[in-house]
């Protein structure tokens, strides 16, 4: 996105996304006061956070229209990040007996 007229067209979009992010923040706070059950509260908060983060990454960081090189770098990052979370979950499910308080 380098053409000047293109940028001018996106300015209004940046403001709308900024407003949406603030609304998303308020929703996250309100949702935390509703008792949906512990796991569902966590899932809802993370879903809203992921949606907000996606807006930032796609539009503010221009990932919606980037070059292949950047996507390649991020594909590696995603692979290793998901791997890290997989190891985390595996560790959670592999607590030695008598040391867990679950």
């Amino acid at each position: 996105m380098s053409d000047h007229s293109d940028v001018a067209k996106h300015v209004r979009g940046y403001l709308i996304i900024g407003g949406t992010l603030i609304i998303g923040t308020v929703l996250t706070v309100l949702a935390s006061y509703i008792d949906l059950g512990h796991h569902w509260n966590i899932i809802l908060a993370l879903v809203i956070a992921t949606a907000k983060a996606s807006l930032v990454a796609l539009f503010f960081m221009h990932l919606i229209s980037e070059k292949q090189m950047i996507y390649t770098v991020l594909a590696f990052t995603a692979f290793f990040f998901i791997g890290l979370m997989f190891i985390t979950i595996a560790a959670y499910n592999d607590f030695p007996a008598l040391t867990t308080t679950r």
Partner: protein
Amino acid sequence: MEIPYTSQPRPDTGIYNAKVGIWLFLASEVMLFGALFSSYILLRVGAQVENWPHGLLNIPIGTFNTAVLIISSVTVVMAWASLKMKKFGHFKIYQAITVVCALAFLCIKSFEYHDKFVHYEVWKTDGTRMTGHIEGNPMFLTKAKVAAKGEDKIKFIADPHHYAESKMAGRDHSGEHKHYEIPLAEIKRLSAFVPAHSTYFAIYFTLTALHALHVLGGAIVIGFLFGPGSKMWFTDPERFTNRVEVSGLFWHFVDLVWIFLFPVLYLL
């Protein structure tokens, strides 16, 4: 020798070199914060429920600080867009607002930290636990420090509820703040809400302090591009615009990390 591809895209990648550089750096940052989030998850699921504090952080302040960062994310992208549209005056305004937002975020965070440093938990020898404040609002007191001052008791103003009562108890500020004089002999442990208090505060301070360092680093770079660094606009506008874009990408990443930190640490 001139550094190649600072403003024009490199033919094989299609982008200027600094952009590849910042994305590689951000990839490493994802793994840094990812490792700390992973630590948070394991500490949390391994903690006893009564030892994992809930609701001790100030949610309105945290929400306001989130809004401050979001506004700064908008202004930083608007600053870049202004340069693309050749509006240098607008760039200056947006860049200045971004720096003000960054400093406001750090200022608010430091007040939050101070609130934790004067907020205490007392573990009594009879097994009861209370959170609250010590008269005079001293920072970082422990039982040993009180004893070293030659005092044999503390004057404690207790919070109406202890966080272990229920998930929402820490957020409930209704009720009476009772005043106690607790002899040191009845105190098993006394700790402010500092990293040594619990694994929760250890990971809270690690994550938020690391994030705050990123905010500070970003503010310095954005401040430089607002001030002395902006001279480049008059000699090499394309390269200057790219610098602003790269600093903006870092700033959005800082915002993105906070978007996850806020609910995880303040709300869940």
